[in-house]
């Protein structure tokens, strides 16, 4: 390798795309050339950060609503708001993946193409991404759970009401418990009787057989008025 800087080969070195001899010579150059070493370091860091960004995660709620839209359109017939290509937004191929005019080489729909057996349902190879049929199965299970909660209009209100009642019963159960520090008392009935006799100015009396015998003449006059 000459004393020239690595230039475009620097990027290939970072990407590991150089052949063994080229790679050996590039490393020898880096050992001697401070600018190339600095540039190689910066390039490596930049590529590393770009790889660390990853792909954006789809919004789950948004995807759920898209799925339900798709399922409902299948149940209730044609959706007047569905895009003309069929399926919801995102169900079609990504931008840029459309087939070029004339088709790909070997495309069965293209000139000279042949049928693609892998497109037949149930013939997907293990380890491959889930097919449309498998996705519909997953979506069906989530829809089944959603339908359990909405068997009649206002189902979500019934669930909320049941939760409120449960919370109320639980709170009342706790509030109805007996305080641990409540002392055991034996009311002093004798003292109470005296206090009651004082304020009512009357003491309790026992009836005697003699008194009961004379009750007719005793109370008849007052009771009969």
């Amino acid at each position, binding site marked *: 390798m000459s004393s020239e800087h690595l230039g475009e080969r620097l990027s290939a070195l970072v990407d590991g795309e150089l052949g063994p001899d080229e790679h050996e010579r590039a490393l020898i150059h880096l050992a001697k050339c401070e600018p190339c070493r600095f540039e190689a370091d910066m390039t490596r860091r930049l590529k590393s950060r770009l790889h660390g960004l990853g792909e954006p995660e789809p919004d789950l709620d948004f995807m759920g609503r898209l799925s339900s839209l798709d399922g409902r359109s299948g149940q209730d017939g044609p959706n007047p708001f569905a895009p003309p290509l069929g399926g919801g937004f995102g169900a079609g191929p990504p931008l840029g993946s459309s087939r070029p005019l004339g088709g790909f080489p070997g495309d069965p729909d293209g000139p000279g193409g042949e049928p693609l057996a892998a497109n037949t349902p149930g013939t997907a190879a293990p380890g491959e991404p889930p097919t449309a049929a498998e996705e519909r199965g997953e979506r069906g299970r989530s829809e089944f759970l959603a339908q359990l909660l909405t068997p009649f209009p206002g189902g979500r209100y019934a669930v909320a009401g049941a939760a409120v009642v449960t919370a109320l019963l639980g709170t*009342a*159960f706790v*509030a109805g418990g007996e305080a641990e520090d*409540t002392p055991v*008392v034996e*009311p002093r009935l004798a003292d109470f009787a005296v206090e009651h006799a004082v304020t009512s100015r009357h003491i309790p009396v026992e009836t005697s057989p003699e008194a009961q015998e004379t*009750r007719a003449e005793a109370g008849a006059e007052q*009771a009969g008025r």
Partner: protein
Amino acid sequence: MSTEDPSSRPRRSAPAALLAVTALCVLLLVSAVHPEANQVPAEGADDGLPVLRAAAEAEEETHYAAVRRVTGPEGRSASLRVANHPDRGIVFAPAGSEDEPFVVEASQALESLDDRLLEVLRETYRVVDAGRTELGGRSARLVEAVRADGTVAGRFWVDTDNDLLVGRTAYDRDGGAALSMNLTDLETGEGEWPDHAWTGQPWGEALEAGDREDLRSEGWELQEHLTWDLHLVDARATRHEGHKVVHAVYSDGLAQISLFLQRGKLETDHPTAPFGGYVGTEQGGAGISSGHDTIFGGDAGQYQTMWQADGFVFTVLADAPADLATSAVTALPSPEGSSGFWARVERGLDRMGPL
């Protein structure tokens, strides 16, 4: 045009119909518990009140001795000797036990209580002067306490010679005589004062309106009215073993009901089960106690019951018609007779109050 399945309409309207029926039932129940026509204060001229005020003044000024005969709702009677000493008090001695008298000492508190009892009588009933009559061969003036529906709730006989109250009867709502007292063998003049007597005075700590409000805020069930006709006429407190005990006196002007309140709970082996949580009487206060006769002793128109609720022990002693005693007991928190789930939930809802 609707594509809804017609067969599903009845099912969807069922909850609404159920809700409507429930609301109707609640409405009917609410209307059913509205106060009856006679459960309101009676209006009209209280021309009999001056007669009763004169009798109260005569009680504070006249020395006399007599036999008081008490007759309960079943007609059973009992007698005791009474001697009134206006400056010192009233001496009570059950017939046959004159050497063991009980003295209620005279006090300003009791005079004030008499004034409040007369005021409550005026507020609750129409107090009518029914004219002259006779009782036990003595000339008397009859005063009637009349309910709003015109039925008589109570009668008083006031001796025309000395203005002393010589007879009184309280009637239940069916018109039956529930509790009667009348004086016989009446002799005016200063009699002997017993050398040895068991004495009693009202508990010393009077609870004024502010004190009662403070107690209520601390959870004490100290209501100003138990029912429309039972007014709080006196409230006092004392301490037993360092713990406060409150005595609240409720009255309609004719009968008195004592409610004793104290924090705590009864022993677990207390015999609460036979009467649905109430001790002493059947649930609601009906029936005469057999549980504490040896303590309270009376069986002529007297009711007593005890129970625990909301961390308090309630004891009710009443010289009153059974229906009045029952309404007082049922106006208070229900007894905690069960520790089951729903009983505990019900108790908790009661404690939480209106949400």
